[in-house]
Every structure is written in C-alpha cells, then in structure tokens.
C-alpha cells in the first residue's frame, strides 16, 4: 500500500494563490519558521520546494501557500481536500534565527509574504516589536492581510498600482520609515530576488543587518545535488542546507537572478503541454 499525504483543507487566497493544509504529523512536529518541504504529486512528478507557511503540531498539519505558476503547482492547485499527494518531505533547511532582537522590520513581497508570515508570528510571540511591510501587484492579489495584522505591531500594505489606496513598492514605505528615524536591529526581507536586492541596498547604506530567504531551484533538498547553490560572501553555499536564510548583504543577487531561469523554456513547455491536455479532456 502506498502511503499518501492527504490534503485536509484547500482555500483559494486569490485566483492564483492557494493555501493547503496537508496531513503530515511528523513534519508538523518538527517544523520551525524558515524551513521548507518538498512535494511530489505522483510517480512522474517533479520535486518542488515550498516554504512551510504554518503548522499545527497537535493536529499534525502543515500549511503551504503556493502560486500556480508551473505545471506542478497548477496540478496541485487543481486538487481538492480529501485527495492525497505521493511525497511530502521535510522539514528541510535551517530554521530562522530569531533570538536576541528587539525591533524588526519584516518585508514581504507577493508570495514572499507567506514565507515571512511564520517568522513575524514567531517574533511577535517572542514579544519583539515587528513592523511589517507587505507589497502586492494590486488589491486582488493581497494575501494574509489579517494574519499579518495579528503577527505585527504595525502593518503597511502597498500595491504597485495603488488599487488599495497605498501605491508604491515595499521599499518606498521602508525608506519612509527609515527617514522618519525608525531604528531596527534586524530586517527580514522575503520576496522576489529583485525586491530582496533592493531592500539590501537600502539596509546596507543604513547598516542594518538583513536576512533574506532564497527560493532556489532544488532537486533533493538535502545537499546532495548542488543545484540550489549560490554565492554568499564569495563562497558557494547550498540554499537547501546552508539556508534558505542568508545574510542579505553577502548574497550575489545577480548570479542568483541569472540561475533562476535555467529551466524557463522547459517549464513553459511542460505547462503548455499540461494545459493543452486539460483543454482536450
């Protein structure tokens, strides 16, 4: 008998972003903010890493939030509660270091908000003062606003097009807070590489320690393939075992941005083929 990991709950947060609760008691028991899982839907499936957005040790549940961008995430997004997936490995990666800080800015870009959320929540529980800034394309793509409100002392939500009444990038808001004289002893920035790079440029100038979270392409997630490698402080690091958190000021973002699109062509092909099949059925 094949063991399956059951989908306990599914919720569409936006048309593209889905939240799922997966029954994985052993993973839930060990999960910490900053860690991730790797899932595989079926025998022919690929291994896809996703950050652990939340966990409930008592219920044995791990929450994942994902954007339906490629074949596998689209396929997963089309599944429903009650169905199961074949593989769900974790918790992988090092937990985030959240001790010994007092004032923290948590900056989330798009889906990165889902990764930043458990960290903000943990910080809040440690009685740390958390200013959270989360940014989205438009009003309809905002996720976790309620949760982030609860997990922060103050929450700022920006949209690129201003459709929520607060136009601009997360960096604009952050710059404003800095210019108002706000002092942070740590910045956690999670989102698209471009955004994390921009935040790091600001904080380098302001000399604020900044931690970013890498979302590299992975295969095993245990340090055996090196596909997730990046340069940090001039040295090769593996995002899956040395990270996913890294000191932002030492990361070679340009290289990471370049490596992100290794399989862009193949991903497109795979997706087109998938959608074409769905169309036929």
């Amino acid at each position, binding site marked *: 008998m094949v063991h399956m990991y059951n989908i306990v709950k599914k919720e569409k947060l936006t048309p593209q972003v889905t939240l799922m609760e997966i029954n994985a008691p052993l*993973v839930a028991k060990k999960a910490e903010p900053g860690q991730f899982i790797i899932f595989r839907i079926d025998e022919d499936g*690929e291994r896809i890493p996703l950050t652990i957005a939340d966990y409930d040790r008592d219920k044995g549940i791990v929450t994942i939030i994902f954007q339906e961008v490629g074949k596998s995430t689209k396929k997963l997004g089309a599944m429903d509660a009650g169905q199961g997936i074949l593989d769900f490995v974790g918790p992988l990666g090092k937990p985030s270091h959240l001790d010994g800080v007092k004032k923290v800015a948590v900056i989330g870009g798009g889906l990165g908000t889902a990764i930043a959320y458990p960290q903000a929540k943990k910080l809040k529980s440690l009685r740390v003062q958390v200013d959270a800034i989360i940014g989205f394309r438009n009003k309809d793509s905002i996720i976790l606003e309620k949760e982030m409100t609860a997990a922060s002392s103050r929450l700022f939500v920006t949209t690129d097009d201003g459709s929520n009444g607060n136009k601009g990038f997360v960096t604009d808001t952050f710059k404003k807070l800095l210019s108002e004289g706000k002092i942070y002893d740590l910045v956690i920035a999670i989102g698209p590489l471009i955004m994390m790079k921009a935040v790091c440029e600001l904080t380098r100038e302001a000399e604020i320690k900044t931690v970013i979270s890498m979302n590299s392409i992975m*295969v095993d997630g245990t340090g055996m393939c090196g596909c997730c490698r990046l340069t940090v402080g001039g040295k090769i690091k593996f995002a899956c075992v040395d990270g996913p958190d890294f000191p932002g000021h030492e990361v070679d973002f340009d290289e990471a941005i370049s*490596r992100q699109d290794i399989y862009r062509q*193949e991903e497109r092909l795979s997706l087109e083929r998938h959608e074409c099949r769905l169309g036929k059925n």
Partner: protein
Amino acid sequence: MIDQTLKKVEILEQDPNTRNKNFLEVALGYMGLSETMAKEEAGRCLNCKYPKCMDGCPVGVQIPQFIELIVSGDLEEAYQKIRETNSLPAVCGRVCPQESQCEAKCVRGTKGEPVAIGRLERFVADWHIKYAANKPIHVAKNGKKVAVIGSGPAGLTCAGDLAKSGYEVTIFEAFHTPGGVLMYGIPEFRLPKALVQKEIDQLRALGVEVRLNMVIGRIYSLDELKQDGYAAIFIGSGAGLPSFMGIPGENLKGVFSANEFLTRINLMKAYKFPECDTPVKVGKNVAVIGGGNVAMDAARCAKRMGAEKVYIVYRRSEEEMPARNEEIHHAKEEGIIFKLLTAPTKIMGTEDGWVKVMECVEMKLGERDGDGRRRPVIIKGSEHLLPVETVIMAIGQSPNPLIKDTTAGLKTEPWGGIVVEEETGATSLPGVYAGGDAVTGAATVILAMGAGRKAAQAIKKYLQA
C-alpha cells in the same frame, strides 16, 4: 578437459551506435550470456586448490564453487552459493570492478584473459530472477527493533541480514525511492532499476519496513529513534555531498554536479521529459570533469540525451583512471572523446550567464604522491579553449554532514567520514553503527555491502548481550 582458450566468451551487447541513443541495458538479452555460453566460460575455470580469486573478493564469494555448479548445470545452487556471502549478486555482477578484484587474481589472467567471473555472477543471478521463485522465508520475529538509515547497498544488506535473524528492521530513506546510488546514480543502461526494485521487494517480503521521505537529522534525531524503541541504529547514509573545483565560472548556467545531472536523469527520469516533469539541460558540447565511474556514467548519459560531442576531461592518464575498465571501454565505443592529462582552469559564459567555453591546461605526470599515483603538473603555456555549453563536475563526493551536525558525540574525520571500529562498524555512540560510503567516502557497492554485513553481525551480538 580444460578449456584452453585465452579469451573470455564474448558477451552480447547492443551496437555502440545504437545504444548511445537509448537507455536500455548495454548487454543484450536478459542474462548477457546464453546457458551454453555460460557453461563454456565456466569451463575455463581451473578450479584451483588455493583459489586466489577469492582473496580478491571483498566479501569472499566462493568463486570456484559457484562456477563449478554452473559447469554441472546446477544454476540455482550456484546462485545460493553466491548468496551465502553476497546479498546482491545481480547488482555486483554488473557494477563490481572485477578487473581490480577477483579477476585480477585469477591465474588464467597471467596468460590471456581471466575467467569472466563478473559475467558469470550476473548470469547466475539473472537466471535465478527469471526462473527460480524466491521461497517465502518465514522468520520468527524476536521483538527487537533496529533502525537503518539509508537504503543504499550498505543499508539494504544490513537490513536484510538482521531481518533474516528475526529483528524488526525499519529503513529510513531520505528520497522518495529506495536504493541509494543504485537508483539515483548508476544509470539504467548499466543497472536496470527493475533489478534493484526486486531486491527491495525481497526485503519487504522479509518483513523489513521501508519508510521513505525521512530525512534523519531533520524529521528524527538519532536520540528520538532510540526513544521510539530502536535498540540499535545503522547509519548507511552514503557520500552524497558533491565537490566543486573552486574555479571561476562554476555557478554559470550549464554547470552541474554529476549528482544533479545523474539524479535528474536516473531518479527523476528526465530522459522522458516532458512525459515526466523533471527537465535537464544538455548542450551540444559537453565536458565531464573526472575519471571515475561517475564521470563515465555522466558522459554516457549526456551522449544518450543527444549531445554531439562529449568530452571526458581528466588530469591524469588513462592508466590512473579509477573507473571500471568496462566503463572506459564502453564509453570509448559510444563515441566519448577522452581529453587526458587536461584540467579545466576557468569556465566562461555568455552575457546571459550560460556556459560558452572552458579554459583548460595540459598536464604532465610528475613525482609519485602519497597514494602512489604520479602527481599531475601543469605544463606552462598550454592554456587552450574548449567550446562547450554544459560542464559536469564528477570530481568526487564526501559524506553529507546532516547526521553529523545533528548528532552530538558522533565522531567523524575532518573530511566528514564517520569514525568506526574497523571490524564491527561501531561508532563512538553506543548502539550506533555505520558503514559504506558514509564511513569510507565514495568507494564501491561491494565494500558498502560488506560493511553492512559486518555491522549486522555486530548489532546481533550487541543486542544479544
């Protein structure tokens, strides 16, 4: 009458120019040899009174005895004879470096070719799989639980031996498929995955539980395993951490570790993309750095994935290559180009960050170093460019630090190998044993198996005490 022929009976193989486009096994037909051919080859064995071949076998397979059983046509008995000391004959018959082990010692080799011990082992094992049903073994359980970490040859052997003695064995494997390197590293054309699957099915039939997706060190610590009632633990987690050279350009797109390249192709079946979801990128021109089995496998996979020119770039000469002779021979037949006494110094890319060309230098062999091999030295002014789009690093692996990093008190070497007592595999922690590549660094299937077996013996003793 002793067969006087100097050459081994030829094995039937796919034509090199056909096989370098498919992933089917190189040897044709299931067993490589027909029964008549096997008997003919077996007839070349002199049945020495003091068989040297057995000294060459790390697990002491009773070689003349099993070969004699082939001559008399008792193939199932021949199989059982091998099984007495080797739990994975179908695998070892295919991947053991016989030329430096049993066959190196065969007296027939002093004049002409040695007896084809590896091919005979494989023939017997395949015959067994095809014609002899495994008798269901019923073992009374003794109620003692043992945890085995990793399902490579070390873990599988240790688990099998313990299960046969009644222990309740659970294998914890990080990947979604058991088998270790046998599944993710060694390609289908050299070791059909169905064979490995059969071995694992046999273990399950013995009552061994295989739990997949279990990264020990993350989901369970060793202490937690003990708390869960495992009275002893065997660590067979292999040597999975890939090395890079540290030359400029290694993070360009198109540079892979052999582990990544082979895992994508073998475990994730990238050769079936887009039917299977995992892709791999292979350029028209591919350079594989290294001279071991891993390098040969990567090069031959690249060729099969459609690369036009595939180079093996190795800094010493062919004589020093650690790969099995057969792999070197097959690679050459399949059109792999050997650039020997050559080492890469730099990889250069396009504007978009893709590999475009690799700078190399020529080497010559100088003084012998610690391990007796002549040390390669750079020839000044020999820099030259090799246009390639893909570079695969196959320059070695070391043990993954995950278990070491999460287990207080587990002694390891500076390079990561777990320190054990040679004869028993006992680590610095009571009740915890280790063996295979996790201890030795990247070695061989047969040595890993031997270590698994030794540790199983020691664990039995430990738990009886």
